[in-house]
């Protein structure tokens, strides 16, 4: 994109205190430099250079705060904010006492989207579900989902229930990312072919910035269903450690007598993880295979147009 032009953005919106900053920090491995229980609202346009799925930029906005300054600023900047939006992710705090108000602000955001970026995808996250008793979670989420779907018409919204203290947050964001990839079926097919050719146990494709799993192939049942989130957290933690030494993470090989795992940059927006359970295959062989596959997958991306991104409008 030429310098100065408005980048395509992903909007992360919600009431002040609904958990957006924590969410962004966790998903994108940003260090939170201050107490998230801050007194003011977020004004977060130009500071966010988090690149995501190609050249998307993540913008955080507090919506419906008590601060009149915030309100006025928001209203006057509305067209700027809602132009060129690819994705709107709206966060609802499940324990909020002001449901009417929340819905009201949500609807005004939707109006702005309808005017400025009518093709945007809408996702609603019902957040902080860990505060609800376990036996009531499904019920409460279903209620909210119905309300939100009804209020969002004519736009369509997809709802998730999330909490930072279980796997639901990671799964929700992985689903969001999955839905943003237009040719995902083709990608999965190619991935399966690749895995079968190199005789890998499992091959994962991660989004580069967030290590959210875009697609994966496994040739046999794996026991741990939480392994994606765990790998993601481990790698992000390692990335944080690397950044403290002004180094950046590029690739990793983990090997013992039972398996070998390779994590490496794949295309411009993805990482790949290959797990081989036959330790007799030398590393060099797998690395060559990965390198060759890289070229093939890059071609797949470029096929989709001159935008050089995984995301097609």
């Amino acid at each position, binding site marked *: 994109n030429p310098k100065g032009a408005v980048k395509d953005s992903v909007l992360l919106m919600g009431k002040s205190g609904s958990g957006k900053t924590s969410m962004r920090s966790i998903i994108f491995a940003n260090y939170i430099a201050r107490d998230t229980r801050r007194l003011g609202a977020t004004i977060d346009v130009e500071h966010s250079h988090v690149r995501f799925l190609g050249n998307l930029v993540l913008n955080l906005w507090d919506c419906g705060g008590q601060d009149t300054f915030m309100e006025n600023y928001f209203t006057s900047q509305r067209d700027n904010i809602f132009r060129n939006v690819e994705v709107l992710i709206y966060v609802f705090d499940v324990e909020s006492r002001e449901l009417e108000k929340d819905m009201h602000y949500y609807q005004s955001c939707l109006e702005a989207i309808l005017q400025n970026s009518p093709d945007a995808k809408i996702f609603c996250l019902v957040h902080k579900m860990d505060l*609800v008793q376990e036996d009531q979670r499904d019920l409460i989420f279903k209620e909210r989902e119905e309300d939100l779907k009804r209020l969002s018409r004519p736009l369509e919204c997809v709802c998730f229930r999330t909490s930072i203290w*279980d*796997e639901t947050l990671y799964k929700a964001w992985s689903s969001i990312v999955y839905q943003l990839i237009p040719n995902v079926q083709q990608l999965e097919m190619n991935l399966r072919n690749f895995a079968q050719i190199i005789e890998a146990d499992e091959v994962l494709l991660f989004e580069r910035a967030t290590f959210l799993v875009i697609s994966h192939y496994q040739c046999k049942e794996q026991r741990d269903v939480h392994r994606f989130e765990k790998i993601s957290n481990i790698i992000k933690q390692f990335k944080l450690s690397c950044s403290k030494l002004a180094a950046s993470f590029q690739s990793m090989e983990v090997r013992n007598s039972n398996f070998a795992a390779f994590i490496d940059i794949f295309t411009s927006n993805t990482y790949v993880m290959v797990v081989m359970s036959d330790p007799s295959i030398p590393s060099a062989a797998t690395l060559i295979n990965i390198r060759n596959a890289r070229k093939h997958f890059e071609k797949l991306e470029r096929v989709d147009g001159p935008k050089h991104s995984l995301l097609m409008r």
Partner: protein
Amino acid sequence: MEEDTKPLLVPVGGDESNYGIMNIQFNPEDFKCKRPFHVEPTNIVSVNDDMQRVTDEASAMNKRIHYYSRLTSPADRALIAPDHVLPAPDEIYVYSPLGTAFKVDSCTDGYGKNSSIVTIFMIWNTMMGTSILSIPWGIKQAGFTSGIILILVMGILTLYCCYRVVESRKMIPLVDTSNWEFPDVCKYYFGSFGQWSSLLFSMVSLVGAMVVYWVLMSNFLFNTGKFIYNFIHDINVTDIVPGTNGSNREQACSQCGREAIKYLGMPKFKTRRYENSKMVYISTRNFLVICPSATSGHTPQNRSVMFSSGNDTGFELFEEWWNKSQTVPFYLIAVLLPLLNLKSPSFFAKFNVLGTISVVYLVFLVTVKAAHLGIHLEYNWFAENDFFVPEFRILFPQLTGVLTLAFFIHNCVITLLQNNKNQENNVRDLSIAYFLVGLTYLYVGMIIFASFPSPPLSKECIEQNFLDNFPSDDIMSFVARIFLLFQMMTVYPLLGYLARVQLLRQFFGNAYPSIFHVLILNVAIVGAGVAMARFYPNIGGIIRYSGATCGLAFVFVYPSLIYMISLHRAGQLTWPALIIHIFIILLGLANLIAQFLL
């Protein structure tokens, strides 16, 4: 932590030497090694080892917590795992990489580690206040039978309201209330009005208690000083009592004019002496019980007459400089005002045991005195009598006012019960504590009342502080006064700290904004205490007014109102519940109004 030689971690499971792999040192006493780590033993030891000791969810949570802790600085409270997502402490193991697991033996932060006995004792100790000194007077004001009935009824009523306070947190849905105290619950239901009003009533109870303490401390310091002075100078002192108009005391000594002495027991010798051209009877220290005051409203005027071969001027100088209401309250300022300005009076919390000793000693003293004096009871149901009071009196609200403060613990009961090891026994332990408190009050009140020597003295003579009924040269009450004086001196800074923290935090957001704010607050509180000691040292009155006021909010109105509102929100409010709790609120209101009318 360094003194704790018992290892925090207790080994559980297999022996590390079973594994033939290189041993990684894991010292169970290494408290600094606090980072939890988890490695699946299957991946390290052998593929075929199917024994899975940790669930997938637990290991995922472990990884999550580890990662989140990297996202913030260690001082930051954000992204700390709340209690409800973590497994219970006894389900947490620390694994060594070779598969042995260590279980954390006990919680270091003291949460939930007190046995029932300790909890009961803590509640009893916190509730036992200086109101025990006013219970006999309260029984006298209400009448013997109605006094006993009222103690039982008020005990049960306040216990029920305390139970409502404890349960009030649980009825709040969707919010993590594990750190909440009762004022937080009030704020939740009533908004900032609830917050401010609960602050106001909490301050009433605290400042009321501090004023009572000041009056009592002046009293005890005065008596202690007098005792020591008289002992040193070997003075035979008697207490002269002014008579009142129309009371029976004048009849016993009709020739005495305005001055009369009440005494019990045969005096060693009796002389007449002329003082201010009025004749007075004087006796030496043979008094067991005295009746020092006029009817309420008059400041007690104890004047002492000296018998000594030496000169009287030294004694009169002493009397002038050591006066119960004029000078001693001011001397206390020099000791206590600096202590109030301390930032953290946690040092004084160590003296908590003095309170228990004082109460136990009081019970002992009461028993010994009763053994000496015997029982003097006579039942007149409604009629006034020269020496006795009727069984049912119209002044009974004064007792209920005192009892509201005597049974008051509602603003901190949640915190006290939180440390109970078996939380399901909370209600039972609370009831046992209330029962023991009621028993103590009943015992002291009944024994003092019953053994008060009525034929020569009237039951009306029972003082608002029953220790005042013992002459200043009585050894046992001297010891009691010393204990209580020291105990109050250590509790006074703690009360001041509580009042300061609540008030300043609410107004300035900071518990210690500057030395000037704190000093002004302390001077105001001390000033109130000194003023009361000077002009209205009737602790029974102060206790009943402040008790009824703060009891109105915390005992009667708020718990019942919150219960009714939460039932109504849950759609479970029934007519009987509504009627009963409105009745309780009206009782609280009547209690407060009656204090001012009667």
